[in-house]
């Protein structure tokens, strides 16, 4: 009598018809990036002459880029670059987006006249947050002054956005 039956039973024992394994799951939650304006851009005081363009660079220095606009100097006449404070995850890098389209400054003293603000520049090409998750940068631009630009205080706003890389 062969013992095939017993042998077969031994061989078939212990074969896996099911299996399972674990996989790790991960996620990294970081501080959202924020930007606030701390200093407004200013072109200070000037006379329009026969018009032209006035630039403020990212260091806040004014210059007459074209035409014969006359810059006034002295206390209260100077220009300023806009300054922004960025906050977020320490050491992270981010892109800075300046307006691509010109922005409008509106005469608040006498209704009815505008000036166009464009060619925005920035003090840094792109950002890197410090070890405490902060960084500041400045922005300049160029203002177009018309030949009969009405006197007054002109004001407006422009958007700047930041985004993690």
């Amino acid at each position, binding site marked *: *009598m*062969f*013992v*095939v039956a*017993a*042998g*077969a039973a*031994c*061989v*078939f024992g212990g*074969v*896996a*018809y*099911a*299996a*399972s*394994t*674990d*996989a*790790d*799951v*991960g*996620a*990294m*939650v*970081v*501080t*959202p*990036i924020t930007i606030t304006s701390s200093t407004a851009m200013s072109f200070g005081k000037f006379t329009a002459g026969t018009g032209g363009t006035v630039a403020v660079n990212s260091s806040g220095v004014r210059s007459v880029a074209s035409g014969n606009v006359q810059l006034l100097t002295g206390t209260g006449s100077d220009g300023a670059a806009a300054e922004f404070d960025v906050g*977020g*995850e320490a050491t*992270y890098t981010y892109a800075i987006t300046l307006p691509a389209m010109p922005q409008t400054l509106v005469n608040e003293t006498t209704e009815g006249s505008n000036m166009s603000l464009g060619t925005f520049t920035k003090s840094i090409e792109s950002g890197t947050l410090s070890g405490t998750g902060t960084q500041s940068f400045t922005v300049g631009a160029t203002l177009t002054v018309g030949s009969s630009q009405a006197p007054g205080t002109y004001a407006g706003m422009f958007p700047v956005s930041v985004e*993690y*890389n």
Partner: protein
Amino acid sequence: MSMRHALPLIAALGLAAQGTLAAGIVPLTVVNIEPLSFGTFAAGAGGSVAINASGFRSATGGVTLIASGGGTAARFEVSGEPNRRYAISLPANSSVRLASGNGTAMELSHFTSVPSGAGLLNAMGRQTISVGARLEVGTGQPRAIKNSKTNFTLQVDYE
């Protein structure tokens, strides 16, 4: 007096074993080769982050994905009988939670896989499974000091 010609017990077992192994079933095994990662993101006003089985990442609500922050679908290698079908079992919604620093645990749901539901081992007895899922992110989910980690179980069964 007749003579009994019977092989010794051990030799008989040896012959039987050879014959039976040739008809034996290849065990089903599964190993994990890639973890599931939702990558880096800022929670903002909350929402969700999803990784599909192709590894494509998307977000809803106020969650901002960090573009360079990756994310991967989980991948597993299954091996067993050539050309055999097997069932794939994924975790139920809300059964897996990802703790995040001192914040609320984030629940995983909507596990999906490719292949979905069941797979078919190829002529070499192999197949790769990719798994994605969705992560619920609470409002103002605080940043984690280090990567949050948990794990989930994938089960496969011959049909």
